[in-house]
């Protein structure tokens, strides 16, 4: 082959081969390892509350360990004193991609320190 290229062009070509190779390898790996029955697996965790002028801000981390994206995920976070619900907040996340996490926050009027925080997914759509 009589390719006429200078060092820069060969470098770009080499880097391109490496990048494309890596991308294809990752995609093939992902395609092979992803499960047959693809569904989202959402997990909700909360972090420590901070005092804000509006109330108590509780950061919420929604993780999707599944192999499919969850769309319009609705999360409910409740402050429970024993079996009684003291206060609750809801949030909606447009997309939680597979193997990814999204961060959000909810604001309570009451100090969450009074109660146990129970966070769970109520619903999501499969895209």
């Amino acid at each position, binding site marked *: *082959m*009589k*390719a*006429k*290229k*200078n*060092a*820069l*062009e060969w470098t*770009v*070509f080499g*880097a*391109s*081969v*490496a*990048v*494309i190779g890596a*991308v*294809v390898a*990752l*995609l*093939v790996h*992902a*395609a092979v390892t*992803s499960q047959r029955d*693809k569904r989202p697996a959402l997990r909700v965790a909360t972090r420590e509350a901070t005092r804000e002028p509006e109330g108590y801000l509780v950061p919420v981390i929604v993780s999707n360990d599944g192999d499919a*994206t969850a769309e319009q995920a609705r999360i409910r976070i409740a402050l429970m004193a024993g079996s009684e619900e003291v206060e609750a907040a809801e949030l909606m996340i447009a*997309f939680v*991609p*597979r*193997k*990814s*996490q999204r961060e959000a926050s909810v604001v309570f009027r009451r100090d969450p320190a009074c109660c146990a925080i129970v966070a769970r997914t109520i619903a999501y759509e499969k*895209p």
Partner: protein
Amino acid sequence: MMTDAADAGSRHAIPSTADSLREYGRGFAGGLLFSLPLLYTMEVWWVSFIAQPSRLLVLLAFTFLLLLGYNRYAGLRHDASWGEVAIDSVEELGLGIGTSAVVLYLIGRIGPATSSAEALGKVVVEAAIVAVGFSVGSAQLGSRDRDRGKGSEDDEGRPTLARQVVIAGCGAVLFAANVAPTEEILMIAAETGPVRLLGLAALSLVVAGGVLYSMDFKGAERFAAVEGKLDVAIGLAMTYAIALAVSAILLWFFGRFDGVGPDVCARQVVVLGFPAALGSAAGRLLLQS
């Protein structure tokens, strides 16, 4: 200008680093020119993490084929062998991936907190269109004389069928890809009656035919020359068929056929077929020179 004139005489010499940089620069500008609307579109980011890895692989393969075809028939080096064409296509795909990763990072769509699956999806989907833009940019945005001997004019005079199909396909992809991922295509398809959609199809044909044969469009005389009415009919049918095929491929990739009945699928193809027809007709004239 001076350097370009000097280059024209030495087509078979190794290009200087400055020349290569200019060529990459043009490709970079072209890539961004065609892909920025998509890089800035929410639906495309979403598609990229909804799409399964196997579909992303198909997209990469399709993009590479398109690059091979375009570089072979309308690329910078008209005397290039398939080997050189393949090398150019690999470079453009690699640079497309790099460019899309950098821009997505700068606009805050990927970062250290993004999972690898999500980042990979976004980069690959955006890279496809950046790479095609890269190829078109480096070939078409340059001043014209570099790498083009006067002698090759004869080979270009009579456009072959394969060449026209590939270039019309590139035009359709570049133009239709900007609207294909949007929700609006599905909305129009679902809410518009069949008579109006037939009207839209007729308008697509009229516009494509006008561009190719009767508007004195730049390049029409050379790339869409006809000898009779039959030639016009064949050329137009081919252009619209390519537009519809590209439109179907794009819609499938963006997941617009998933869980949708055949009727709405067909309607969507016609809706997206309008910009695709315009792109494929204009592409046949403007994307080769």
